[in-house]
Each structure stands twice: as structure tokens, then as C-alpha cells.
């Protein structure tokens, strides 16, 4: 019970904190996040469909045999370039809290999780010259957003057999963007002006997934998720809703010997369904997004799989919210990771290091180094 209480508190605080994030998170709902564990992150996300600590495929929690909880945080170092200039930034997010455990006496497992769905933290600065009272006055504008979307999931998995697991999940999507627009003037005769308001979002969704083991070494996984429209309010005033995409993902994991696991997966979201809604609300629209990933996990200790493994991964995908209409935005990442377990494997931490390259339209580039740190505790 103590473990559950700690996890519940963690879920309340999960999500992004004040930070300057990617310039590719300015449009649409922000920069999409992956509901995967640190372990899966270290493999480029390729293990996400099969990982019992990830909230991607509800079937994956069928593997858990102990009540466990994990919490992760990401520290990012980023350099962005745009036609207007370059900037370096750091940020910190708390993208996930995950609790899962078996339901005693049954073949069911259950999990409750909170993970970041989209990160929309940014501060944009620009200059302008206005003619005020017949005189040119230079203005400096900043537009800042804090917040994003979180995905709260309750999932149940059923172990049909040792080879087949099914899972379903219910999702609550919630979050806000706290916007602050500020205009200041170089002429001290003019006071600055600021407006503040909050966009709030609420939506629901459902997901289902399956994991099938074929023979001794091959496991296939797949999931599908569909979400209701995301209702949008500005300071409690409804301004419309945004259609959310159907998510489909599938992948395979292969075990080669006692120490090596390979995995690959692909994910598709038809974000184009949100295009017209975003344009109506003043945005640049959205396009379908895809993601493919591949990775491996090498166990240095075959008897203790989570103690000092070596994980490597690659990922490439497209982002759904272009900076300018018609632009194609891509994201490529290379990652590595490991884990440490102690106290008879009842506690431990995971690390993943990613190098990410993002490219938008002409002149928009970004490189980022992301260090993900996770803590896992397991009921004895």
C-alpha cells in the first residue's frame, strides 16, 4: 500500500515543468512524447510494445508478476537553429509514472500510469518596429507557453496462455498551456503590456493490444488506440475541439541466445484528421506521422536481466505539426541505455541517453541530448 501511495502522489506531479523546449513543440499540441519506460527509450523505443513498464501496449503488462512502480525524469540540452537565429536551451521534464501488478488469484494484471503525451513549453522572442504617435518605436515581444498534455491510463491485461496476452486500456487526456504574451518597448515612455490566459484540454480514449510468442524466440506485438475529440477551452470558454488520431503500432522481438534481444517496431498515427480543426483554431494544421525503431538489449548477466544490460537503439519518424504549412518535419534519434538493480532486485534505476536530430522546413534544425533517468521499486 505504501508503494501505491507513493506512486499516486507521483502521478499528480507527472508532466512537464517550466522549461524552454523544442522549437518544434510550438505548433499544434506540441512535441509528442512516447509513453515508454527508460528501458524502452534506451532501445530507441523498439521494445515499447513488449515492455511491461511501458504504457504503449496494454497487453505488455500481462508479464508482470510483482507489484512495481517506476518514475522517470528527462534532462535535455538542446540547440535550435532557425532563419531568425540560434539558441541553446536546457529543460527538465517528468514524463512518466507507472504502477503495475498482478491481480491475485487471476490471470489478470493491472496498471495505472501517467505519461506525457505532448510537451508545449516554449519561449519565443521577436523584434518589431511600431509607429506610435508618429514615431518609430522598437518593440520586443515574447510569447511563452508552459504545459502540455498528459495521458492517464488504466489498463488491464489477460494472460490467455503462456504465449498469448491481451490488454485493454482507458485513457484520460488532460492538460493545459499557460500562455503569456509580453510586449516591451525600448522607449521607456511606454510601459510594457502582458496578457495571460490558459488553454485547457480534455479528452478520452481507449486502447487494445496483443502479444503473441511464436516458438521460443520470437514475440510479436501490436496495439491500436483511438481517442475521442479533444475539447479545448480558453480560460473556461469553449473554443472548439480537435480530432485525435487513431494509433496503430506493431513490432517483433527476437531472442538470440540467452543474452541478446533484438526488436523492431513501427507506429502510425493519422494526425491529418486534426488538420482542419487546428486550422480553424488558427494553427498550421497537421499531417500523418510515422515512426520506426530498432534496437537491441545485451544482457551482461543472463540471470539478472535488469542488472547492467547494454541497450542500443535507433529511431526515425515524422512529426505531425509542421512549423509552416507544407513543411515536413523529421526526427531521428540514436540511443543507449542500461539499468542497475539492487536490494535483491527490489529497487534500481535505469538510464538512457539519446541524441536527437530534428529538421523542419528550410533553415529549421535542432539537435538535442536527452538523459532519461528512472527509478523502479518492486514489492518484495
Amino acid at each position, binding site marked *: 500500500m505504501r508503494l501505491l501511495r507513493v506512486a499516486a502522489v507521483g502521478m499528480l506531479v507527472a508532466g512537464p515543468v517550466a522549461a524552454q523546449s523544442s522549437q518544434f513543440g510550438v505548433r499544434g499540441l506540441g512535441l509528442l512524447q512516447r509513453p515508454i519506460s527508460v528501458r524502452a527509450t534506451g532501445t530507441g523505443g523498439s521494445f515499447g510494445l513488449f515492455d511491461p513498464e511501458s504504457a504503449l501496449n496494454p497487453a505488455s503488462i500481462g508479464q508482470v508478476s510483482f507489484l512495481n512502480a517506476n518514475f522517470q525524469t528527462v534532462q535535455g540540452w538542446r540547440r535550435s537553429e532557425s532563419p531568425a537565429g540560434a539558441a541553446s*536551451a536546457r*529543460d527538465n521534464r517528468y514524463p512518466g509514472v507507472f504502477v503495475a501488478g498482478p491481480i491475485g488469484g487471476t490471470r489478470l494484471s493491472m496498471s495505472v500510469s501517467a505519461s506525457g503525451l505532448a510537451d508545449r513549453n516554449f*519561449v519565443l522572442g521577436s523584434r518589431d518596429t511600431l509607429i506610435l*504617435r508618429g514615431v518609430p518605436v522598437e518593440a520586443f515581444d515574447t*510569447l511563452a507557453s508552459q504545459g502540455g498534455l498528459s495521458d492517464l491510463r488504466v489498463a488491464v491485461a489477460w494472460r490467455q496462455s503462456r504465449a498469448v496476452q491481451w490488454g485493454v486500456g482507458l485513457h484520460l487526456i488532460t492538460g493545459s498551456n499557460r500562455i503569456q504574451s509580453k*510586449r516591451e518597448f525600448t522607449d521607456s515612455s511606454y510601459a510594457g503590456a502582458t496578457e495571460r490566459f490558459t488553454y485547457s484540454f480534455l479528452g478520452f480514449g481507449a486502447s487494445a493490444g496483443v502479444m503473441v510468442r511464436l516458438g521460443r524466440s520470437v514475440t510479436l506485438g501490436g496495439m491500436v488506440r483511438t481517442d475521442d475529440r479533444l475539447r479545448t477551452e480558453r480560460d473556461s470558454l469553449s473554443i472548439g475541439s480537435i480530432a485525435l488520431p487513431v494509433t496503430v503500432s506493431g513490432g517483433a522481438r527476437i531472442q538470440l541466445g540467452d543474452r541478446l534481444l533484438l526488436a523492431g517496431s513501427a507506429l502510425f498515427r493519422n494526425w491529418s484528421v486534426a488538420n482542419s480543426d487546428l486550422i480553424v483554431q*488558427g494553427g498550421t494544421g497537421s499531417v500523418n506521422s510515422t515512426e520506426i525503431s530498432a534496437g537491441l538489449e545485451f544482457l551482461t548477466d543472463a540471470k539478472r536481466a535488469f542488472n547492467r544490460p547494454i541497450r542500443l537503439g535507433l529511431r526515425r519518424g515524422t512529426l505531425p505539426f509542421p512549423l509552416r504549412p507544407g513543411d515536413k518535419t523529421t526526427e531521428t534519434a540514436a540511443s543507449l541505455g542500461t539499468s542497475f538493480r539492487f536490494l535483491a532486485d527490489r529497487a534500481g*534505476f535505469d538510464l538512457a541517453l539519446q541524441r536527437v536530430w530534428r529538421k523542419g522546413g528550410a533553415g529549421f534544425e535542432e539537435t538535442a541530448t536527452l538523459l532519461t533517468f528512472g527509478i523502479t521499486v518492486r514489492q518484495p
Partner: protein
Amino acid sequence: MTRVRALMLLLALGVAVGCQEELASPTECPELCPGLSLTIRDTLILANQDQDSSFTGYVGAEEMSALLISDGINAGEARAFAAFPKRPDSVTVGGTTLPITVDSVALSVQLLARDSTLGGLKLFLHRIAPGLDSTVTLAEVDAMLTPETLIDSVEISDTLKRGTVRLVLPASKLDRLVGPAADSGRLGIGFRIKAPEPTGIRIGSLFSVSGGPLLIAYGKVAVTDTALQRQTLTVPSEKANYVIEVPAVGGNDRLVVGGKLGTRSILRFTIPPAIRDSATIIRATLELTPAVPIRGLRNDPAALQVRGILVDLGAKSPVLSNLSVTTPSKANDTEVQQVEVLSIVSAWLGKNNFVPTALLMGIAPEGGSFGRPEFFSSRSGTGTPGLRITYALPSRPGHP
């Protein structure tokens, strides 16, 4: 245990490097920004027709903060006068009251302001009747300032901008400072100035920080201790005032501020609901058009003071002491006077704000300045007072 410590160390490191923010990313707006920045607009709001007027009497007839003395300036002719009580003829030395033999007397005034670009300024002191009060006219005072009543004059140093001006009279002239028995020994002094050009000065009054005119007597007492033989008697003036004859106001359509008795003007405005409810005012400037070149003393600008009011009760409107701005009002200026009143006007905004949208104007120091601007009003047909407001309207950027 070592691993637990390592875990705690890593966690602390994560927290330490975690919660940090960096500078804004440069971008090109509007094409790459999710929405426009605040919309800036500018408008001129004229004072409400026939709702602006002037009131006088905010300074008591004997309570002015300075005494004015002038000679030929457009702000008016001014003479100052003071009355001293009978000078004591004894002092207390070591608990014993002893008669003092006065051998010289100094008359001292505190110079508060002058036209520092003008030299050759001379202050003349005349012996006049001590019973003058605030009802006396300039002509009556001038009638007493004759060569026969002249006590003496003192040249004010060209380098002296503020400070003490003293006239010392030796024993041979002390009879000029003896009050007549008919006035119970009280002494009246009249002040006027002369200079190569029209000018004026302001000197300390009984209500100014530096104090009013003083009479200081130096003398000897008959004691054996030589260190105690030299004694001083200081006699402050018991009354000090001035009389000024100002040009008549151009008409009832004028707004006046300043003057000896403190004249104030009230202006009322109607702020459009769109600004009042939704805007952020980034600059508010009160524009006042002088009907005549601003009256005052050159190089001694009066402060045009504008204040917000708590309740609009006309002449008796209580002012909001924390909402006050001042701007110098230069003598002989004919340009439109601009007073930045952002702090006051900002207090008018908001749907549930009941602060009156009115401005109360005056001159500081009230009653003790030559400054007496005369502005066109809403009835003048031209030069109506206006409030130029530059404001920002929300644009709701940051959309998804």
C-alpha cells in the same frame, strides 16, 4: 548501502540540473509564431464638454509655503512683508536676566529660488506698518515702500541660488529697526527687489522648511566672565506674507492652476468601454494647450501636478495621494504641455472599478510659486484638453 547512496546522489544530481530555464528562442513573427502579439492602438480622448472647471482657495491666506517678490514679470507684481514682535532688551545668562546693549542687527531671509541666469539682483528692505494682513493690496504696500522708509538694501550674490541673505545694520542705523511705541514696539518690514531685467525671487515663509525672516541682534551684557559678554538675540517674524497682483484670467473658458490661494482645475473624461474593460494602457499623456504664454519666473519652473481623485465631489474631491505625477511648467512656454499620467489612468481600468475618471490639476508648491498657467478648456472651441492614450488589446496568441 553504497548503492543506495549512489542512487541518492544521482537523484540529487538530476534535481539539481533539472529545474532550469533558458532564454527565449529567436523567431520570425508573425509567420512562425502561433498568433500575433498584443495589438497596440492610440487614441485621443477629449475632456468631457463643460465638465472641466477651476476652483480656488486650497491654500490659507496666511499659509503659503514661500513668499514671492517680483519686479515686472508677467506672473504678476509681488511684494513680501513681515512683522516682528518687540525686540527684548535683556537676555538670560547663567540663570540671571541681564540687560543687553545691542551694537548691530542682522535681518535674514532664506532665498528659495531665483532666476540664476540673471545677475545684479538687489533686495530692498523697508520699514512699514507691522499690522498688514492678507487683505492688503499691492498699491497699499507700494505706498509704504518709499525712499523715506528704506532701511537698507543688500545685493544678492550672483552665485547664490539658495541660502541665506543677510543685511547687517551697524549701531549707527539701529534706530531704523525700533518699533514705534504706538505699535507696542512691533516692527514691520517690507521687501522688494530690483534687477537689470524683470525678475523675481521666492523666500522662506513661516510655513517653509527653511523658516521665515529672522531678526538677529548682537550685543554685550555686563558680566565679569568675558566669554559670556557677547550675546545674541534671535527674533523670528511673527507674521510673513506677500501680496501679488496678477493679470486677469482671459475668460470663463480658461482653466487656471496655481496662484497665491491655490487654484486647481478638474478635468473629466469618458473612457470607451473597449479600453476600460479589455485594454492595458501603456502610455497616457494629458495634453494641455496654454491660452497665453505660461506665467511664471524664468528658470524657476513650477511643477504642474496632476492627481487622481477618490470620489468626484467637484472642488472638494479628495485626492488619491498615491496617484500623483508632476512635470515642470516653464515660464513663457507656449507649447502644448504634456503630462504623463499612466499611473493615474491605469487605476481607472477594470469592469468593477469605481475610481472617477477625472484628473485634478494644481501647481506645486501650492501658494508659493510664480507658476500660474492658463489653459484652454472644453468651452474654448480650440485647444480642448485631451488624454492621448496608447493601449494594448489582447490578441490571444499561442493557439494550438
